[in-house]
């Protein structure tokens, strides 16, 4: 059976124009691959974590823990109260229980053989007690022995490798108080070097209680193993009567699920959403590239289509034919993209652990959904992008004039300029209404930003002719002049080509501006609120690190060079029913190293029942000096506190200040996140810093930072985020580059005779290449400029829309050096994109080119 005529035409056309579909193919492939890679990686991570947590609690049939958790606003994971470690003995006597062991877990960061901290760049750095019951202990000894005496430790094999530690070595464990430990054994987790990239140090129970809990006799939870024939549910039911008030039991399975959920919700959700957004950008960019390819192809095939119509093809057949071509390319490219995406996920799985990113081991998980979605997107993008060109192809009159390719003014109509101008005005209006009021509306600003993007796309062709003329004005010489005119030939096409790049550059610019603004804000915060001379910090990201020893601040304060040294610890409590983070500190001393702004009331003598509250928070929760608030702690106790002071600046100090005295009865593992130090009068910066560093070295070697270093370190996460964003956006820019290259290739094909003529009358190959290159650079310059403008505007909108009022307001900053680099990269992209088309053009044989129909 012969396929229908339309299909045969489609296939033969695809075969004939293979090269011209390369750009489209590559654009779809990259977009689909990115999307597939993201989805597969997300699924794989989820499955790996699931396996990991199930493995961690495989022998645990029930977990007994405190029923009280307090979750501070903005945090994903709550803080749970401790249980009585002796409860384990009582539980062990329940007939259904085979064994019960207290589980003590806290932050504990190892120092490597060379004194640098291990891990802390995302995954937790943990320490705990070594559980002798094999079924309840997820770790297995692989070398050496278990800890028996104080100061002995088992380290998971991965951490030991990273730290360069061997059995018998002695090092420091920051709990955060530095503890000297001797490695007596190495442990594996489920056969692997560790639980993902988590580092774990196992101590004796006595050491764990001493260093990881607020007081001896406390445990994080109790792991319970059921007797023979007792199911997890039956076990939980049997435990209930033995538990004191405020303590609950859950099945081991539920505990694993909670852990997985916590990681999925807090880390994976964010991670995949983040990647999906960038896949979206890449796909959007490819839409423009593909649309452009088909628009050009249809224009080039006017004669062919006219002939088809003349010999009796229905309009519908021409449209279907073009769409079928798009779908065929989409299908092929998507299929290749799916494979590439799986490859990308596999590659990342291999790469991430190497750079310290938590990517647990395990097989790739490829679900039908993570294949179907990218395939659907690939096909939809192709068909959708080709729809308008296809309809245009269908409208070809059978007697379409067989004219030379000429200058076409398409896309510069007055109606377009008017529509675009109106849209732009509407966008600016909406945005200004959204961000300039007293109460910025993110919703209005986002709507305005959306309209602005649309306006830029609509205005593209109009702007293209104006901008290329202006950008090309300084270009002298025949070849550059020709390049300028070629770029102006079809403003619609130039704009569509440049739009792809514009979107990529706009997103890059948006993030660059936003990142710079955040940094500027951070700088300003430190500048304004940090009144001390040096800060001691323990830089860490995510769940890693263990903070600073609480004994550090008093030790530093005792130095003759130091006037004031005050530690800022973290606490958490429900204040009148709302979870809030507390800053545990000496408020009176704090005021000497941080500028808290105007203080109403007094910060001295807060005692065990006094609070200080930041002004904004006080206003929001109706607190004022003299009022009382009820604080509920994780240990289940409730205390009434009196607000003694309201201070103005919360940016470094936090919203609530509470004394150590008040916090002590309810504290968890003790750690400071920052020690702010002010030198005594007359002490030089160098002397002071040297003295402080000497003390800090005795407490786990945290970093001693000057104000500038502190500001920079605080902004370190922003640079990391920006680097990641740039890496992800490189793909979108690559697709845009392919788009420019593709359009140029099509243009070169279209202008074969002109190129032949130019060569005949004396244009050298080098000149011809330069001409094509300059055209490409002009298009790229237009796209880059548009992107910088649009991105800068959107960045401003974002900063304005997010800003609070007063002190917490974000500072808007334009990083000119970085943006100049972006502009240069955009122009370089133009040069690179022109490389192949220019070479092809220069290779044309003159006589054949002139003779080309």
């Amino acid at each position, binding site marked *: 059976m012969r396929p229908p005529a339309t299909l045969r035409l489609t296939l033969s056309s695809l075969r004939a124009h293979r090269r011209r579909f390369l750009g489209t193919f590559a654009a779809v492939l990259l977009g689909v691959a990115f999307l597939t890679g993201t989805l597969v990686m997300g699924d794989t991570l989820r499955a790996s974590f699931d396996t990991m947590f199930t493995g961690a609690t495989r022998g645990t049939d029930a977990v007994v823990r405190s029923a009280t958790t307090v979750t501070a606003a903005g945090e994903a994971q709550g803080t749970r109260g401790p249980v009585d470690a002796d409860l384990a003995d009582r539980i062990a006597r329940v007939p259904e229980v085979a064994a019960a062991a207290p589980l003590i877990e806290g932050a504990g960061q190892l120092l490597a053989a060379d004194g640098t901290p291990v891990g802390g760049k995302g995954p937790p750095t943990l320490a705990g007690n070594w559980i002798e019951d094999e079924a309840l202990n997820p770790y297995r000894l692989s070398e050496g022995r278990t800890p028996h005496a104080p100061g002995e430790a088992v380290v998971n094999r991965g951490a030991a490798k990273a730290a360069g530690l061997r059995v018998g070595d002695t090092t420091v464990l920051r709990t955060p108080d530095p503890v000297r430990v001797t490695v007596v054994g190495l442990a594996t987790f489920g056969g692997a070097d560790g639980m993902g990239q988590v580092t774990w140090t196992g101590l004796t129970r006595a050491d764990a209680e001493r260093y990881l809990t607020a007081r001896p006799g406390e445990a994080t939870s109790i792991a319970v193993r059921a007797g023979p024939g007792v199911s997890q549910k039956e076990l939980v039911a049997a435990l209930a009567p033995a538990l004191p008030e405020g303590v609950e039991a859950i099945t081991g399975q539920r505990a694993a699920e909670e852990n997985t959920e916590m990681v999925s919700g807090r880390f994976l959700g964010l991670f995949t959403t983040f990647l999906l957004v960038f896949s979206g950008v890449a796909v959007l960019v490819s839409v423009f590239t593909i649309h452009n390819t088909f628009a050009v192809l249809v224009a080039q095939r006017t004669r062919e289509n006219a002939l088809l119509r003349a010999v009796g093809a229905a309009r519908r057949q021409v449209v279907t034919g073009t769409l079928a071509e798009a779908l065929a390319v989409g299908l092929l490219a998507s299929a290749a993209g799916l494979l590439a995406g799986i490859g990308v996920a596999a590659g990342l799985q291999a790469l991430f652990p190497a750079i310290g990113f938590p990517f647990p081991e395990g097989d790739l998980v490829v679900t039908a959904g993570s294949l179907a979605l990218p395939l659907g997107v690939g096909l939809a993008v192709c068909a959708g992008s080709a729809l308008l060109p296809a309809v245009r192809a269908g409208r070809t009159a059978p007697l379409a004039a067989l004219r030379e390719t*000429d200058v076409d003014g398409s896309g510069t109509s007055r109606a377009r300029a008017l529509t675009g101008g109106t849209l732009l005005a509407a966008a600016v209006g909406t945005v200004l209404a959204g961000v300039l009021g007293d109460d910025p509306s993110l919703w209005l600003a986002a709507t305005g930003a959306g309209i602005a993007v649309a306006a830029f796309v609509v205005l593209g062709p109009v702007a293209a002719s104006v901008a290329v003329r202006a950008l090309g004005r300084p270009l002298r*010489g025949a070849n550059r002049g020709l390049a300028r*005119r070629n770029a102006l030939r079809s403003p619609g096409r130039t704009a569509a080509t440049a739009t792809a790049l514009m979107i990529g550059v706009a997103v890059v610019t948006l993030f660059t501006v936003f990142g710079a603004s955040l940094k500027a804000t951070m700088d300003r915060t430190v500048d304004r609120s940090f009144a001390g001379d040096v800060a001691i910090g323990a830089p860490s990201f995510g769940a890693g690190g263990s903070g600073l020893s609480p004994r550090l601040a008093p030790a530093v304060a005792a130095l003759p060079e130091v006037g004031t040294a005050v530690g800022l610890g973290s606490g958490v409590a429900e204040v009148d029913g709302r979870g809030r983070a507390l800053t545990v500190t000496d408020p009176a001393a704090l005021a000497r190293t941080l500028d808290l702004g105007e203080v109403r009331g007094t910060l001295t003598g807060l005692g065990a029942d006094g609070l200080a509250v930041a002004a904004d928070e006080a206003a929001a929760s109706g607190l004022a000096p003299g009022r009382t608030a009820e604080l509920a702690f994780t240990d289940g106790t409730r205390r009434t506190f009196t607000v003694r002071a309201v201070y103005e600046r919360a940016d470094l100090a936090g919203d609530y200040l509470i004394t150590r005295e008040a916090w002590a009865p309810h504290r968890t593992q003790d750690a400071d996140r920052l020690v702010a130090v002010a030198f005594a009068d007359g002490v030089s910066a160098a002397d002071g810093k040297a003295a402080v560093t000497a003390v800090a070295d005795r407490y786990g070697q945290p970093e001693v930072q000057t104000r500038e270093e502190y500001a920079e370190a605080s902004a370190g996460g922003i640079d990391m985020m920006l680097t990641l964003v740039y890496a992800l956006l490189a793909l979108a820019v690559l697709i845009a580059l392919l788009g420019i290259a593709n359009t140029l290739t099509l243009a070169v094909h279209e202008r074969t005779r002109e190129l032949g*003529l*130019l060569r005949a009358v004396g244009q*050298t190959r080098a000149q011809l290449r330069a001409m094509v290159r300059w055209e490409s650079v002009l298009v790229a310059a237009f796209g880059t400029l548009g992107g910088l403008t649009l991105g800068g505007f959107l960045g401003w909108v974002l900063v304005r829309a997010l800003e609070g009022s007063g002190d917490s307001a974000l500072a808007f900053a334009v990083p000119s050096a970085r943006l100049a680099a972006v502009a240069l990269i955009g122009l370089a992209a133009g040069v690179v994109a022109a490389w192949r088309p220019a070479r092809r053009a220069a290779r044309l044989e003159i*006589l054949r080119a002139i003779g080309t129909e």
Partner: protein
Amino acid sequence: MTTATHTPAAHAARVLDAVKVYGRGDTEVRALDGVSVDFPAGRFTAVMGPSGSGKSTLLHCAAGLDTLTSGAAFVGGTDLSTLDDRRLTLLRRDRVGFVFQAFNLLPTLTVAENITLPLDLAGRTPDRARFDRLVDTVGLRDRLHHRPGELSGGQQQRVAVARAFAGDPDVVFADEPTGNLDSRSGEEVLRLLGRTVRETGRTVVMVTHDPVAAAHADEVVFLADGRLVDRMTGPTADRVLDRMKAFETDTGRPSAAPPATASLTTRGGAT
């Protein structure tokens, strides 16, 4: 007749034992089969011959647009076979002018810009007075800022003629310059070529299959089957037509009207 500014060598261009072979084996076509011909400076020479005679190939090789399989081609005293692609391109730009049958102009450039294109490519500033004289000769002063798309076919070819002479070339090669024009426009273009040669002492080599066009030349050379078969000075349309007829009888070809319908043409050597 020469002008003070233009002192040509005895031969503006010539080919020696020119052989051009396309394809190989069974499909081998000898488009030029040992042609030696010189084009005297200051003359308007027409190259005539039936389709497939190799006349276009001769022109392309003499002008440095194509290379000979063997033999030599000279522009002035320069042996083209000694030049690489870049030098050949520069020679075409600086010392040769072209008028093709069609598609002579860049659609993005104005008439004035098209005329000065070779000069612009060379980075030379056109001599104002010369340019004005040229524009007046071709009669396009009121069209200078139009684009080619706005001109008639005859006007476009006149622009091409102006472009060909703008760089003060040693020789202008015209490949069927009137092939796409109606007879009146064609006549104008041919007169323009003849007048320019006679008034300014330039050299023009024109390929044509039209005896009427050939009659505008000072001399006609006849080509058949890749060989030079005759020369005629002071041609008239009738004499050329007669010669063509006789020549077809000579070679025993099936008789056809002299502007031969494309029959035995070869791809590369098609006229």
